[in-house]
């Protein structure tokens, strides 16, 4: 059963202490696309993301990477294909940027040997692509949130993955940094033919960058498709309880969502 998709999720359910967190989620991700998984806080988005690289195990259904069930692949093999940019990047130990980015090569190395010359090349390129090469020797615990985010993205890139998962990439970032990080991801996705899955509740910000969007509501897939198809006023009202409208930015041609206010009646 090969779909040709880098990632398929088949009727995945996850419960936490008898409460359903995810209920029969099915979706497919196409190669090279940026997929936004949007929904209000507490709808199960982050749990879904953690199920995608086996940090959590689904109670029903399965996740397929390149057609194979991830429960049957080792964590190391998954890490060769899936890079993750987690929500919180608070790091208290004084690793240098180069050391952090270098950890992206761990799935490819054995337990004690250092980096090969090929590893070093990949690490250097990942830092260059993400614009952190000039800060390679700086300490991670002295950096700002946006800089740290870029370092973690560089680490994910150095895993040479097919898929990158991002959990709330705009959270905790200044507005200009949000654009910078998402622009970076968009560019990297093009340059490296990467599939990107972004989980977020930041409707207006993430919509600009996504090829397709999945709306999650009440632990289920509410709608799935291009922003034009599914970000209707009714859907946004139903899922986010906001009065909002999808528009095309006349200057850039990007989609953008205008928020008018809450839908309290």
């Amino acid at each position, binding site marked *: 059963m090969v779909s040709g998709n880098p990632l398929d999720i088949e009727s995945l359910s996850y419960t*936490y*202490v008898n409460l359903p967190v995810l209920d029969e989620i099915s979706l497919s991700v196409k190669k090279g696309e940026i997929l936004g998984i949007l929904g209000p806080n507490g709808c199960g988005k982050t749990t879904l993301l953690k199920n995608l*690289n086996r*940090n959590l195990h689904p109670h029903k259904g399965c996740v397929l990477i390149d057609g194979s069930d991830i429960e049957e692949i*080792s*964590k*190391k*093999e*998954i*890490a*060769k294909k*899936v*890079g*993750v940019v*987690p929500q*919180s990047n*608070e*790091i*208290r*130990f*004084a*690793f*240098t940027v180069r*050391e*952090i980015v270098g*950890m*992206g090569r*761990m*799935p490819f*190395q054995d*337990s*004690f040997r250092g980096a090969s010359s090929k590893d070093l090349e990949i690490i250097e390129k990942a830092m260059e692509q993400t614009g952190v090469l000039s800060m390679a020797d700086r300490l991670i*615990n*002295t950096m700002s949130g946006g800089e740290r985010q870029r370092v973690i993205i560089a680490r994910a890139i150095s*895993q040479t993955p097919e898929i990158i998962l991002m959990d709330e990439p705009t959270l905790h970032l200044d507005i200009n940094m949000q654009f910078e990080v998402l622009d970076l991801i968009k560019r990297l996705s093009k340059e490296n033919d990467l599939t990107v899955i972004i989980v977020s509740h930041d409707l207006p910000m993430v919509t600009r960058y996504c090829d397709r969007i999945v709306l999650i509501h009440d632990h289920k897939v509410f709608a799935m498709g291009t922003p034009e198809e599914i970000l209707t006023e009714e859907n946004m009202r139903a899922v986010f309880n906001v009065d909002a409208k999808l528009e095309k930015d006349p200057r850039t041609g990007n989609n953008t969502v205008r928020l008018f206010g809450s839908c309290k009646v």
Partner: protein
Amino acid sequence: MEKGLKITIIIILLTVMLMMSILLDLSWAPRHLSLGEVWDALMGRGTWGNDIIVNGHNAPRVFFGIFVGAALGVTGGVMQAIFRNPLASPYLLGLSSGASLGAAIAIMVSIPLIPVVVVQPLLAFVFCLGTMMLVYTLSRTVGGVRTETLILAGVAVSSLFSAVVSFMTYIAPSEKMQSIVFWSMGNLGMVGWENILVAVPVIVIGIIIMVFNSKNLNAMMLGDAHAMDLGIDVRNVRLLLIVVSSFVVASAVAFVGSIGFIGLVVPHIFRLLLGPDNRLILPLSAFGGAAFILMCDYVARLGAQYYGVLPIGVVTAMVGAPFFIYLLSKKRSEVGW
């Protein structure tokens, strides 16, 4: 300074310090021996008296001291990485108070036919491991074991056991009370070669396993989620390392009593000098821990003719705690607090 050069200098200094402290500690005797006399005795050229002092009396203590120091230094570094907590040490999880309780019970309750020299390390060892298992079980929740819960469970169990030991000390007859107190402050001088044969292999194998997990520990220092994302089976690696470090610590403290601050101070010094990469920190902490414990042992014995040999735990704390306070006040950001 370039990092390679820095590492070389540190290794040279450390080797010199370790050699010096080995010779100094071997030289201890009521009538002080010169380092030349120690060397001669070691090489089999010493006088009959010096041979007994150095090879007979001091050598087992110094030899075992090297491994105890290494054990405590490395497990300290490992615990700080596993728990992402600069305060973590073998003692935080109640290992030491568990061992103390075991030893205190052995001292208090004499079992017929089995001498207390056998029962005491045995019970200390068993209680040390048992405490670890208790703490680990207590902190298991639905989603696995959280490090914060583990630390809290460690602190709680540790306080309870310490209280029981205090109670036993209080009600014990005076000669037993003295040995409980002495044991709970540490003493390298109680070991013989037969103990060493039991403990050293466990310590060496444990240290090798821990050092081979350096890279995994590096990733775990960023956070469990980061480490999982990098393909590490965090739950199993953490369990393995907790079990291994419990065995290593139990093998050390069962014979020498609880000795604090080595696991806390030594890894921090190297982290301050070289950054947090465990591939450097763990092996260096083994050598640093060995040098530190022998120097403290030597100091503990300096004033022996006036007030007897000090418990070594007193010296390690008196040297370690001020240094720790210095780190806390001056170097907070460099160590990552």
